[in-house]
């Protein structure tokens, strides 16, 4: 039994040694921070491994789900802005959203007109007109209120609720967005989902960055509260260690649930769909419904992971979300670790995150050496922005890793175990 | 001598063998017909000869040269052409463009061959500028055969050229096959209409479970009571 897991044991021992190495060089405060972040990424990566590894769905917009998770945790947990609630602006904003709600009800209602025998073309026209009217009315009434909020009270602030409520809502809203996208794209070519998720991520970012009345935009919101006692009470190391035990507990629970789902009929059906869509269809499986479920579940995990990471960082900065760090780094974790294998994904997440954080000082050091040598040997005058260029070299390395792993180790270092079904 | 000869070939998909030793041979200027029940390996034999699946055992010779597991491109260069059963025309290209695509590998002028093809299939000449997707099933089959003839092949492989055609077109296709063969093109074809096909065949190969069951001249097979009973529907 143990011999079956030789590879896993060796890899995880290596990972443990690597962590110890980082601890001894960089100190406990640094290492615990890195580990908490790595564990957040692990939650996100588990979300991706069920989307990609279980069901073969390409999500190119993980960043959007992380950002929305972090936003909701900010909204729910940040202290209440008394100025805003005390002013008349709150009721102004409420009436704006009431108008939106009415519009949405009308739009949804118009979609049901088919029941009264209205022809499809007419129905579509009515829906489009209602959407246009709702949009224009909403935008026009929101604009002055948003402007007033920004100039008078800064932004609307949070709800001052416990952090975990924000995490739950972060997951739920991320799942809702995934439902919308998946509903449209999952019946079409697999590439279209990638294009659409890429787009929604950019839109979520644009929205969070520019809706200053809601998020303070580029001004950022901090400090976000933690669900556990913070560094002020316990000191950095202990506070982070406590946070780490919370995320570790979450990972254990998620891991347990995922493993059960993977081996349940639901998981088997997903794999059947992934491996051979045609025969799964022929067997009468509802392919798109299963895919939509898994896409939404994955997105919920991503939303939660993003929320937990957001709380830990203590700051909500929408411009800080970039596709490289918040989408493709996670892709590297999953495909390197082993898509579809939860243990592999966990390994990939922690291992890649450590390499990623450590690569920053290493890249700077390497380029510093190059600068000095170039200067000493050739009298080369390095460009002034060499340091920022050095960090870009890491972008290249990410890209190269993706292509190399796809070519030489397409199943990752801990491949999915092909289970022998006993049905 | 034999222009095309397969010696005891074994082949299949993904580790599962479908062909378990096929022996066939046709001389230049002969028509060979492959018949047999569904799943006997008829179409698979043609695909194996044309390099579309891996041959694990046995060998194939074209004009005395070993071509086992050669890729389609090489085979076309060596004078072998293949007409698949389905999706055998470029639907968005015109008839003439379809024919031109058959001559892709030719460096010399193919105008003469084009005229020859139009001579075989006069219908196509009238529709030369029409997209092949707009043609009827029989006309498409003609386009597909015409495309294959554009390299002036020594051997032509046809996979069920009359499948799904009306009897009128069926006869016309058989006529054309004979006409093409008279010009010295060796033909190896798979056919469902076994009786009609064996009528024009010099050689017939009756397959069962991926092996030769009977191999003889077309005439002898037609007259063989055992073949008639089990494969020609009495």
């Amino acid at each position, binding site marked *: 039994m143990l011999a079956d897991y030789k590879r896993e044991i060796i890899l995880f021992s290596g990972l443990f040694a690597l962590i110890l190495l980082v601890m001894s060089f960089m100190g406990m405060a640094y290492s615990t921070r890195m580990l908490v972040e790595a564990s957040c990424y692990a939650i996100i990566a588990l979300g991706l491994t069920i989307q990609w590894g279980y069901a073969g769905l390409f999500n190119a917009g993980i960043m959007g789900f992380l950002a929305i998770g972090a936003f909701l945790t900010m909204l729910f947990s940040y202290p209440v802005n008394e100025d805003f609630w005390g002013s008349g602006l709150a009721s102004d904003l409420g009436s704006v959203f009431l108008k939106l709600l009415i519009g949405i009800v009308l739009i949804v209602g118009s979609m049901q007109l088919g029941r009264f025998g209205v022809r499809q073309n007419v129905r579509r026209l009515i829906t489009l007109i209602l959407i246009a009217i709702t949009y224009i009315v909403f935008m026009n009434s929101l604009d002055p209120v948003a402007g007033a909020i920004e100039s008078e009270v800064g932004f609307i602030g949070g709800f001052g609720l416990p952090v975990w409520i924000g995490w739950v809502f972060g997951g739920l809203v991320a799942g809702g967005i995934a439902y919308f996208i998946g509903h449209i794209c999952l019946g079409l*070519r697999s590439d279209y989902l990638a294009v659409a998720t890429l*787009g929604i991520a*950019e*839109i979520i970012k644009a929205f969070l960055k520019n809706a200053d009345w809601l998020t303070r935009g580029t001004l950022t919101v901090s400090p976000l509260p933690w669900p556990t006692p913070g560094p002020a009470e316990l000191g950095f190391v202990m506070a982070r260690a406590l946070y780490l035990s919370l995320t570790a507990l979450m990972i254990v629970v998620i891991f347990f649930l995922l493993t059960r789902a993977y081996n349940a009929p639901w998981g088997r059906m997903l794999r059947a769909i992934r491996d051979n869509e045609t025969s799964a269809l022929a067997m009468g499986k509802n392919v798109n419904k299963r895919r939509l479920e898994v896409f939404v579940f994955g997105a919920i995990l991503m939303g939660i992971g993003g929320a937990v990471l957001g709380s830990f960082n203590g700051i909500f900065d929408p411009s800080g979300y970039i596709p490289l760090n918040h989408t*493709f780094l996670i892709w590297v974790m999953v495909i390197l670790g082993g898509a579809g294998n939860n243990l592999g994904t966990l390994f990939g997440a922690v291992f890649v995150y450590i390499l990623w954080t450590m690569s920053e000082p290493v890249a700077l050091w390497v380029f510093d050496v190059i600068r000095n040598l170039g200067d000493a040997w050739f009298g080369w005058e390095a460009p002034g922005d060499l340091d920022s260029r050095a960090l870009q070299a890491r972008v290249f390395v990410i*890209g190269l890793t*993706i292509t190399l792993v796809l070519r030489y180790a397409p199943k990752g270092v801990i491949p999915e175990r092909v289970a022998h079904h006993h049905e | 001598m034999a222009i095309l000869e397969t010696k005891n070939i074994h082949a299949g998909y993904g580790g599962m063998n479908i062909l378990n030793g096929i022996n066939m041979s046709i001389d230049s200027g002969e028509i060979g017909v492959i018949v047999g029940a569904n799943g006997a390996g008829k179409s698979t034999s043609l695909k194996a000869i044309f390099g*579309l699946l891996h041959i694990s055992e046995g060998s194939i010779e074209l004009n005395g040269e070993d071509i086992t597991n050669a890729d389609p491109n090489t085979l076309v260069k060596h004078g072998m052409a293949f007409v698949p059963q389905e999706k055998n025309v470029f639907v968005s290209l015109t008839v003439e463009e379809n024919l031109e695509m058959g001559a892709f590998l030719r460096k010399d002028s193919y105008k003469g061959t084009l005229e020859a093809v139009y001579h075989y299939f006069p219908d196509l000449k009238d529709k030369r500028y029409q997209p092949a997707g707009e043609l009827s099933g029989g006309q498409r089959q003609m386009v597909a055969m015409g495309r294959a003839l554009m390299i002036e092949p020594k051997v032509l492989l046809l996979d069920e050229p009359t499948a799904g055609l009306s009897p009128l077109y069926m006869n016309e296709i058989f006529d054309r096959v004979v006409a093409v063969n008279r010009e010295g093109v060796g033909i190896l074809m798979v056919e469902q209409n076994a009786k009609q096909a064996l009528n024009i065949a010099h050689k017939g190969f009756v397959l069962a479970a991926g092996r030769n069951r009977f191999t003889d001249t077309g005439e002898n097979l037609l007259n063989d009571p055992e073949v008639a009973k089990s494969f020609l529907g009495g």
Partner: protein
Amino acid sequence: MNEFIFLFNSVVISGAVIGAIYAMGAIGVTLIFSILRFAHFAHADLMTTGAFVTFFLTVMFPGVGPAVGLPTAFVMLPIAMVLTSLIAVGIDKAFYKPLREHNVKPIVLVMASLGVTFMLQGLVRLFAGTGSRNLFVDDRKEIFRIDLPWELASRKIVITEPQLLLFLFTIIAVVSLHYFLTRSRLGKAMRAMSDNADLARVSGINVNVVVIVTWVIAGSLCAAAGTLLSLDVALKPDLSFNLLLPIFAAAIVGGVGHVYGAVLGGFVVGFAESLAVFNWAVVLRPLARAMEWDLPRSMALVPTEYKITVPFFILIAILVLRPTGILKGKVI
């Protein structure tokens, strides 16, 4: 009258400019889609790479342009197109071809192209830095201001030299691509392969040559689009995701696998963007003055900072209403 000249300048001209850029990108995306069957996510960064190739050539030979009377970067464009084609073919050989030969699912190729996108991004920024650059090194951008003969029209139509060159280039590129695809043997082979790849192989069409030609066309158009866009505005290394979405939207709107569809889709998305962010208050102001209405300062359908939502919602709309695209592409 002036209001309409403003409308012309900021909707017609700028919509056509960005539409032409999208069209050139979408042609490449649609060709790769139909020949190689995957969504090429590295396309926008291939454009950026092409623009930087031009930039390096321009820096090396800054005097060429003034001697001919055209911007140096434009004179250097043919060389940059050749070099970018070579880069594209090389990328295919190194990263996509091995995967194709392993018969991977198309989505794995999409992922590999994302890997390539980051490699290109990293390399461009490593060698050229992260700041924005000007493609005019030893020359200046010429701006034409055209006076209209009417009395009321005091505002001028503004068009720049790079914009004129862009329109000229787009027309030439589309027309020659049309002739290539319908008249030449290789062009027809490309259409044949996009129509039915298996049959193309069986017919003896040299698949490798067709693939190389596809990358040459896509690479050249990328270099041209990247260069002409940077001539018009500025050369920035972070164009990628801002261009990628509209280009894919254009290709899908036009009908995937459809070259003319891609051109049409490019202009549809381009004009939709410039119409959506146009401030209609400017045009309505004289009317409002006459009617004594009170107009808000800004009446754009979509605030400029949300421009990226326009191609996205066009994409969503087409996927819901007509997933095959306007001209009915064949790949769904």
